[in-house]
């Protein structure tokens, strides 16, 4: 199963958005651990909201508001996409993230084939005839 892990850095002033060299080092080491364990599929860090925008809708029409936004507690700082066998494994990895203070990590499971009903799951696994070999890979 795949989990998206979001980090909410909980930074009050976006001027403090860039982390210290020490924090970056610890995070790199953590990311390397995830890589060596074969669980990391993707990751990215995000710029502060001053370089982003929000789109809301009024009467079905999009309305754009440029950042920065006031409610910094709910601002996402980055994400990891993890592939694990269980939710507990994802939680265990999350709990090893070098974070503290006001940081919040959130794990969200990604929709995939195994979330569909059993008959569809079974359908997805069937291939008695190695079909792709009959057509040059």
């Amino acid at each position, binding site marked *: 199963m795949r989990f998206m892990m979001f980090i909410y850095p909980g930074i009050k002033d976006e001027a403090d958005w860039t982390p210290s060299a020490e924090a970056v080092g610890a995070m790199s*080491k953590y990311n*390397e651990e995830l*890589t*060596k*364990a*074969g*669980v*990391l*599929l*993707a990751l990215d860090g995000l710029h502060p909201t001053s370089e982003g925008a929000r789109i809301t809708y009024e009467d079905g029409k999009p309305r754009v508001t440029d950042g920065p936004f006031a409610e910094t507690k709910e601002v996402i700082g980055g994400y990891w*996409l993890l*592939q*694990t*066998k*269980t939710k*507990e*494994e994802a*939680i*265990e*990895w999350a709990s090893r993230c070098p974070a503290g203070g006001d940081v919040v990590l959130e794990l969200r499971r990604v929709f995939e*084939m*195994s979330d569909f009903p059993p008959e*569809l*799951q*079974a*359908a*997805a*696994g*069937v*291939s*008695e*005839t*190695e*079909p*792709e*070999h*009959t*057509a*040059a*890979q």
Partner: protein
Amino acid sequence: MTASVTHQTIEAVWRIESARLIGGLTRIVRDIGLAEDLAQDALVVALERWPESGVPDNPGAWLMATAKYLAIDTVRRRDRLERKHEQIAREIGMQLAMDGSDLDAELDDRIGDDVLSLMFMCCHPVLSADARIALTLRLIGGLTTTEIARAFLVPEPTVAQRMVRAKRTLTAAEVPFEVPSGDELDRRLASVLEVVYLVFNEGYTATAGEDWMRPALCEEALRLGRILAALAPGEAEVHGLLALMELQAARSPARVDAGGEPVLLLEQDRERWDQLQLRRGLEALALAQRGAANPGPYLLQAAIAACHGRARSAAQTDWREIAALYDALVVRLPTPVVALNRAVAHTMAFGPAAGLELVDALRAEPALARYHLLPSVRGELLAKLGRGAEARAELERAAELTDNRRERETLLRRAAACTGDPRTVSGS
């Protein structure tokens, strides 16, 4: 925290730590079977204590320290107390005394080497493929014997016995715990990659096993491939294999239709391919190609899969490139099946006459004498060339050779549709 939650947490810790733990212990006690027992015993202690005490801050280090204490006890208690064991006990004692330095970068490297050495040991050519697969899934993947048995549709005691015998064989053969080097490395690495790809294919082509285990095996193989790529980043074929698996897995969502029928690659809805996995596959392929002076079989197969992956539609497939890649692959991997696929690629690139020439060259191949795809492909090519009677005879022969009912019906229908002779085939 309730006990049941902790139990699942311990399972998760085990999944993360078991390979490093067993690898580290094998390095110390020089016996893979003893190392696994010690790791299991440490896990039992954790299962007893952690529900009360909570999971320690560094569960991996906790398990390792516990296993080391158990190791000293075990080694001292052994009847056949040899000098080797005394020495091991002393070494572990010294290590325990120095613990605390356990978190520096040097140790990280050693942990990586331990896991890699363990992989090379589990996949040693002295073991049968079945034994290598079972050991790897158990000791590196952290799968239970039950899970392995279910995945491969064999009784649990068979898997258990297979592993016991494998560990004895490794001990008897005095297989060293190390990452091989020099000429030995290529041969041993090929054995590791073979095991990973066999696991993947067991999940991907599903010759046996319960449905739910099939995607799990693919995921397990991908995880093993990613671990290998991280631990042995200089090996082009490691990236090649990872690329091949990622690219094939990317197509999984489109490989069967709603009714469960297999969908041929060229007829798949490419919108359903997993774009992230496709991208990861192409990235791994780029890494492989950067390091490869002489492309190996996994890299070449990945490059073929990438040609399909890059084509927005089946019609946009670069068949000339695929035919050229098969020309290279058939030299590195001269199997009849590759040769047949090469003929199909040449047909797509240069027309049925070019394909038929290659297929005809394979008719004398003994390994293909009873392989239904040879007459099946030949029949299709003859049909395209307007040689209906010959085509029908080949397709009927293919129908005789296949074990698969659905495929036989399709072949007989195709045979009956071949013109050139008014006779039709019934019974489809």
